[in-house]
């Protein structure tokens, strides 16, 4: 089985988000980049397919050279080959189109992406790929088993869990639950050394498929005044919630 894991390189979750140039650019000066958490769950599941079923795992990212260290980490954790498509990611269609070009040339049985990236939060890239390439697509994926090119998938739905099945090829949007937090792997020294020897390719490709443009950013209003209520006077809280906030 041949698997591709799509990795988006995102600011670490503790990052303070700031903007430059009249709020038109993201300020990445203090930012530590990490593998998008949803993609990391997907990567770990892929490595299990490698360990248990001998799957081959490629990892790919669309981005500039600051993504290299992230892909190297994925190789150190256990992926076999790395690819970076050398374009700044500007729009979901553009990213999905570039990834589709690579997928179309490489006969993957399974493509694993994340449910959403925690920076753009679009939740769109895998679905666009699925439709371009005519793959089956399941997002919010919290369980995946594959036997003889048949997949059984668990998906989180509002208020429950749905089980689905289909033939490969399949693309999923992974999230926590596909593997547990405690299953995530930290690269060890041996993995890091091995990663240096693994094939790593920079792909030059581009597309005109850009449908949106981010013009400027804005931060939510800063801290508001909190009203403190004494634990001995809970009626006051109920009064506020009913008369002032009007939420009960």
């Amino acid at each position, binding site marked *: 089985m041949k698997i591709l894991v799509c990795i988006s390189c995102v600011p670490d979750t*503790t990052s303070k988000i700031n903007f430059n140039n009249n709020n038109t650019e993201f300020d990445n000066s203090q930012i530590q980049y990490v593998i998008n958490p949803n993609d990391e769950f997907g990567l770990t599941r892929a490595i299990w397919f490698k360990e248990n079923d001998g799957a081959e795992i490629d990892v790919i990212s669309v981005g500039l050279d600051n993504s290299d260290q992230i892909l190297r980490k994925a190789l150190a954790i256990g992926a076999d080959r790395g690819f970076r498509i050398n374009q700044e990611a500007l729009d979901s269609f553009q990213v999905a189109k570039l990834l589709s070009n690579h997928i179309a040339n490489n006969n993957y049985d399974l493509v694993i992406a994340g449910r959403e990236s*925690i920076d753009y939060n679009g939740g769109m890239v895998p*679905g666009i790929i699925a439709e371009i390439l005519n793959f089956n697509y399941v997002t919010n994926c919290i369980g995946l088993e594959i036997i003889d090119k048949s997949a059984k998938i668990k998906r989180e739905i509002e208020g*429950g869990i749905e089980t689905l099945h289909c033939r490969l090829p399949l693309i999923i949007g992974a999230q926590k639950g596909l593997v547990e937090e405690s299953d995530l792997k930290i690269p060890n020294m041996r993995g890091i050394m091995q990663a240096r020897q693994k094939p790593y390719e920079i792909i030059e490709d581009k597309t005109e498929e850009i449908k949106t443009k981010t013009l400027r*950013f*804005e931060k939510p209003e800063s801290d508001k005044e909190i009203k403190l209520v004494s*634990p001995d006077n809970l009626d006051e809280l109920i009064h506020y919630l009913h008369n002032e*906030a009007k939420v009960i």
Partner: protein
Amino acid sequence: MSILVFIESNKNEIKKSSFESLSYAKKLSKLISSDVIALTINCSEFTPLGDFGPDKIISIKDKKLELFNAHNYADVISNVSKSVSAKNIIISDSINCKYLASLLSVKLNAAFVSNVVSIPNSTKPFIVKRSTFSNKAFCEIEINSEIKILSISKNSIGLNKSKSKPIILNSEINFNESGLASESIKVSSGSVSIEDADVVVSAGRGLKGPENWNIIEDLAKTLNAATACSKPVSDMGWRPHSEHVGQTGKPVSTNLYIAIGISGAVQHLAGVSSSKVKVVINTDPEAPFFKIADYGIVGDAFEVVPKLNQKLKAFKAENN
């Protein structure tokens, strides 16, 4: 030109978020002078839609669409959009809508912008605001495609009633049946889902152990609320993953969010901060959650929560 609104329903019950999508469409229709068409699938109860001003309802009934399937639904919506030449398609930010929208966007060669929080501030060019960086910021997006799909962030626009007497059109639509099949659906028993809830009662490590969650569940029951939790609580298996909210869990944008024994780490706040009104109950007055909450109680959850529940019960009994 038309604006098409996809209405989500379950056994004739229309989701509240779909009324919000309609409210959005109605506001947008004034800016671009379009009519508003509501699209329902296997729904027979149209009266409530009339409160939100659609000009037309396209009703599709098909046994093969009884279960939600993103591929099939996207194909249906795409075919309907083409038949009415819809230029704007408005959906909610629900799990299913976001799932189908990316497929739909390719079928219609449309841009899809999710997490939209406001009416466009310009329509030529078409510019909308959406939340990004897990609610830590907003951005303005210019959309350059002729057809646009917008999913509306829950509670960002609100409900806006405007009565109409829509024409109801029963329509038949062909679609390609997907090879992806549903086997079973397991519904968590009797509880309110976080996505649908107006009130969410959430608890963290301050609760000490899963055996103490009865006070949280009791409070949630009184408020007809969904229960949620912080990440470590679900990682330790005290509560199911489906309750984990925050940047790497579910986003919560509800009317009232009550955080009990949750410190308010950035990753937690990122996911819940777009909720309208936030209440924190915590023993530590320095807990970061106090910085973003509207109301706070410095106190022990084990004393405050049962007492608050009693008082709320009495209040509810009096006010109903």
